[in-house]
């Protein structure tokens, strides 16, 4: 069950993971992208932190909206609107249900609608989808989903220009999404 408190903790934890793995994410984005995914996500999470800090006694919807706007207004790359849309959809839905599984599902729908990607296109969808559809979210589920992107051929995003040459590399957005859900598992009281 998501609350204002544990959602803040979750995002703070995600912030730390991004900070720690910033260079790694950009490195992953170098052979099959433009080498900026770590920088993009870092800029976005600084935005999220600032935008959460500006809130005064927010409700959950206001919090999700602030997270979404932080990402949307700071990232710029493809990942910005995608993560941003996911959290915007959660903001819309969270007055109805606060169950993590439900909110991840609407987040996934938002990403798919915004980016037009589907499962197997070697994008963050390939982590969001198994996570959203797992009966029990574990680190193994996440790790397997992330690892599976390695052998896929990209059909969306910058990596798709490489055709078959995109095979053999992890998708950077899948890896950062993996951090997001690992941070969620690690945050007490959400699952």
């Amino acid at each position, binding site marked *: 069950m998501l609350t204002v408190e544990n959602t803040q903790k979750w995002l703070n934890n995600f912030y730390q993971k991004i900070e720690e793995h910033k260079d790694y994410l950009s490195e992953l984005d170098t052979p099959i992208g433009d080498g900026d995914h770590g920088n993009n996500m870092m800029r976005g999470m600084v935005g999220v932190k600032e935008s959460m800090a500006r809130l005064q006694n927010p409700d959950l919807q206001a919090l999700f909206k602030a997270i979404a706007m932080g990402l*949307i207004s700071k990232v710029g790359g493809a990942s910005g609107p995608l993560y941003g849309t996911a959290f915007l959809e959660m903001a819309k839905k969270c007055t109805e249900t606060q169950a993590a599984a439900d909110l991840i599902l609407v987040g996934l729908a938002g990403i798919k609608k915004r980016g037009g990607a589907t499962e197997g296109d070697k994008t963050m969808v390939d982590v969001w989808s198994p996570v959203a559809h797992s009966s029990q979210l574990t680190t193994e589920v996440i790790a397997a989903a992330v690892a599976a992107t390695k052998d896929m051929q990209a059909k*969306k*995003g910058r990596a798709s*220009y490489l055709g078959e040459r995109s095979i053999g590399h992890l998708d950077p957005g899948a890896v950062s999404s993996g951090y997001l859900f690992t941070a969620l598992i690690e945050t007490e009281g959400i699952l």
Partner: protein
Amino acid sequence: MKKIINEPQNVVSEMVDGLVRSYPQYLEKIPDTEAMIRSDSASMKGKVGIVSGGGSGHEPSHAGFIGKGMLTAAVAGQVFTSPTPDQIYAAIKAADQGRGVFLVIKNYSGDVMNFDMAKDLAELDDIKVKSIIVNDDIAVEDSLYTQGRRGVAGTVLMHKIVGAAADQGASLAEIETLAEKALPHISTIAVALSAATVPEVGKPGFTLADDEIEYGVGIHSEPGYRREKIKTSQKLVTELLDKLDQNQPLQADHQYAVLVNGMGATPLMEQYIFSHDLLDQLAAKNIKPVFMKVGNYMTSIEMAGISLTLFDLVDSEWLKYLTYPVETVAW
């Protein structure tokens, strides 16, 4: 990395400031953004607004084309990264004069999604917004299995024609029709001699040996379709022209506009020599361009190389739009 900059993370804001302060007669900043708009507001009155933008690092694109007869506003993202929806939205709002705003977007997933979100925001404000997604780079196959072709130097020609139409009072729908009709006739292909270095990254996007070139490279150091030893200008022209011809057979009885575009570090000397060989080889196919530009228009920071854009002017109005007078920093 040897560059005339200060802190790498400040390059975009310092560059935008430098540009607007150097050329206040053409453009000014939209407060609290990295978006710029015409300073001659009278020239915008009653006209559809034309808004472009994208990642920085392509100077003089896009802001260098702001001015009467061309762009109304342009948004500068981080280097090689799309601007964010709030910034684009601010530009749309400032550019709207009641007749709507037309967006020129290059086909990268980040750009498309960020501009889309901005469009949603603007429509909430009852601003009419239409757009074109430019995808002129024939190096990458257009297929269901990719993001589609990339948008590169041909975008500048798109700016020019829609800007001219808007200045002559065209409606939003007319501009949309013009852009859609023209788009399939604009094709570009590039050759790179060296890569660009994004300041925050600090090293080149790829490396080529001292005698190597790569065909089909994109404007963000995206990979091309073939690497080989450097050739004469004549042979480079042949390769690029063949590729364009395979994509859309060149027609002796058609009127073409040509843009020979330097990628940043390639001197005009080489661009003029390339143009000389190009005009020879086009002449051998009985083609004499009716309009031509040679210079740095859509660059990739300090990448060395040239891109070649052909615009098949199947509608004779388009030539008038291309030659229509403008007041900008860079056209």
